[in-house]
């Protein structure tokens, strides 16, 4: 049984252990104890804060294996990507070129440095330990953030995005970076990412990155090929997110060219498909009749947020959900309480 909950101060050592095994250049987790402590403190403060307008809050969730009493995954959500500056990305523009005299008609792609994602909420830091089996747990981890956003819409923007790490070679080099960022930053990809700490909202970006559109046909072949490509470590997240309703193709990362998935919340299944149900205690250990579906179920306890998965008969059209006392314990809910649930 896995539960997703807000990070706690006691999780720091476990996060440090997790961070030790993540890949260089893939900015899923902070690397140093200091940074981890800061991230945890910031999350605790964010969950505790009264929020009217989304700002610098950052909510960090962990996936805990209850059997092993061990942290096996993380996922975070920033209230506003540009709260601390301007969030930069490349927009994929298509320019139609038509010459009637010459009977030429084709499209030219161009990358434009833009700040359109600044007011979006940003999903990040999705990481799963290799020990977590396939099944509903990964989806639970990815979607719990959005369930929290469904419950607390005032804490988030109307649109969400997720940058996924782009491709790098065996030495940590990025062909997209080599064709673009390197010319302005004059440093290796990993050095730049280290220096900037994975951020995309710093003044130095507007100081250094190109202000004019980059015509894609002028980029070397390997850089063009890397545009919108995911680092292998991000495939699972990509699949979960596209299933959720996120769309790629419109934006890519300014550093490594990785895809940035984005969507209006009305296009996300967690928003359109979730429902609030009353808890009904089920003492019946036998499975219900008919087909069972995986559902994510979350309490509505703010800083005490908990979410788990259950297998249940179809809940659409129901007003209540039957939960075993064990599940109620984990979720800290009782008969008659409200929970938010969505089919996985």
């Amino acid at each position, binding site marked *: 049984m896995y539960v997703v909950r807000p990070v706690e101060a006691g999780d720091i050592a476990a996060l440090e252990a997790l961070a030790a095994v993540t890949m260089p250049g893939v900015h899923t987790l902070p690397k140093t104890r200091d940074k981890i402590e800061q991230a945890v403190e910031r999350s605790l403060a964010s969950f505790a804060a009264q929020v009217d307008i989304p700002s610098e809050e950052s909510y960090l969730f962990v996936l805990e294996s209850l059997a092993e009493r061990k942290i096996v995954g993380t996922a975070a959500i920033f209230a506003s990507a540009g709260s601390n500056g301007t969030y930069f990305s490349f927009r994929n523009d298509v320019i139609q*070129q*038509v*010459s009637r*005299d*010459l009977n*030429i008609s*084709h499209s*030219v792609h*161009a990358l434009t440095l833009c700040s359109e994602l600044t007011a979006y909420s940003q999903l990040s830091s999705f990481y799963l330990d290799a020990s977590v089996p396939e099944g509903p747990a990964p989806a639970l981890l990815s979607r719990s953030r959005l369930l929290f956003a469904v419950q607390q819409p005032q804490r988030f923007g109307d649109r969400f995005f997720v940058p996924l790490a782009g491709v790098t070679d065996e030495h940590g080099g990025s062909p997209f970076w080599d*064709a673009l960022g390197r*010319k*302005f*930053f*004059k*440093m290796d990809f990993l050095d730049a990412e280290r*220096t900037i700490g994975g951020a995309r909202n710093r*003044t*130095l970006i507007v*100081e*250094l*990155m*190109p*202000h*004019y*559109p*980059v*015509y894609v*046909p*002028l*980029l070397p072949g390997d850089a063009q090929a890397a545009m919108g490509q995911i680092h292998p470590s991000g495939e699972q997240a990509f699949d979960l997110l596209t299933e959720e309703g996120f769309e790629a193709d419109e934006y890519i990362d300014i550093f490594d060219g990785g895809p940035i998935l984005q969507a209006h919340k009305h296009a996300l299944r967690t928003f359109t498909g979730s429902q609030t149900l009353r808890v009904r205690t089920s003492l019946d250990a036998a499975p219900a009749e008919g087909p069972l579906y995986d559902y994510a179920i979350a309490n509505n306890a703010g800083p005490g947020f908990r979410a788990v998965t259950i297998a249940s008969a179809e809940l659409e059209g129901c007003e209540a959900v039957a939960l075993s006392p064990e599940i109620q314990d984990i979720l800290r809910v009782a008969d008659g309480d409200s929970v938010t649930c969505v089919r996985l």
Partner: protein
Amino acid sequence: MLVVRAINENDLDALYSMATQVGTGMTTLKPDMQMLGDRLATACASFAETIPPEQRDYMFVMEDTSNGRLAGVCAIKGAVGLTEPFYNYRIGTLVHSSRELNVFTKMDTLYLSNDLTGSSELCSLFLHPDYRQGHNGKLLSKSRFLFIAQFPHLFTQKIIAEMRGYQAEDGSSPFYEGLGRHFFKMDFHHVDDLTALGKKSFIAELMPRQPLYIDYLPKEAQDVVGAVHKSTAPARRLLEQEGMHYEGYVDIFDAGPVLQARVSELRAIRDSDLAVVSPDTDMTHACAPAHPEPTLVSNTILKDFRMIVTQATPVNGAIDLSTLDQQLLRCHAGDTVRTLPLNVRKNNV
């Protein structure tokens, strides 16, 4: 004897026969009777001042008076870009600097521009292979500067000359292959022909409009920005000696440099002088330099402008031209001529 002179109505056949010698690479002088006839008519109207200065096209021919053959041609257009847009890339600088990271990056950038719109243009220089010797090339090229020095009011403040850009051994243009081909999707020579035919609206339709960092281009393309075709290097040197400079404008297709100058800063404007044609006297003879330098001498008549190179040297406002020289220039003792040392004086700095 060779004289450079204003073209006239009788030169059409000889001009055509010279145009057949030109070959590719000079788009403004093709062996097309209609085109050449139109151009000749414009040139005659220009010298006759019957069309406005910005429409004029002063065309000069070098005539071999010994046999009446035309040995070369050159021209000055009153103004470019006033009927069809005149495009160039201008090379600018953009600095990207972050104090926080201690990074300072200076990048060359290409801007699509029409900045040179309205400039006067030196163009259509061609010297027949039989005459490529001695001072002939210089005489032909520099004749235009003496004309400008004599009639500066006919020209705009800025004068330009487009130089043919670098080409590889196989005739391809590395700059075009690195940039233009992605947008035009056709051969370099095809594009070149289209512009020569005046079909230029496709440039507005297809050229990328946004400034381009040169660093984005392949190395071979970067290397030839502002570089001339190897056959053009001597012509470039001649123009630079006369005060023209490469100021960062290049051709949008082959990146060949545009040389330019303020008319007021041309050597011919600064260093040319008027002199009266008068027989040698002991007095002037005594003051003449021991080693006379070749001198360009022109008459001062717009409609029948003529210029030669001679060993006579002006002294104290007078010049002793031989009878032959006077015949070539169609001037006589007592007339005023304009003179300019053929070669540039060493800089005294």
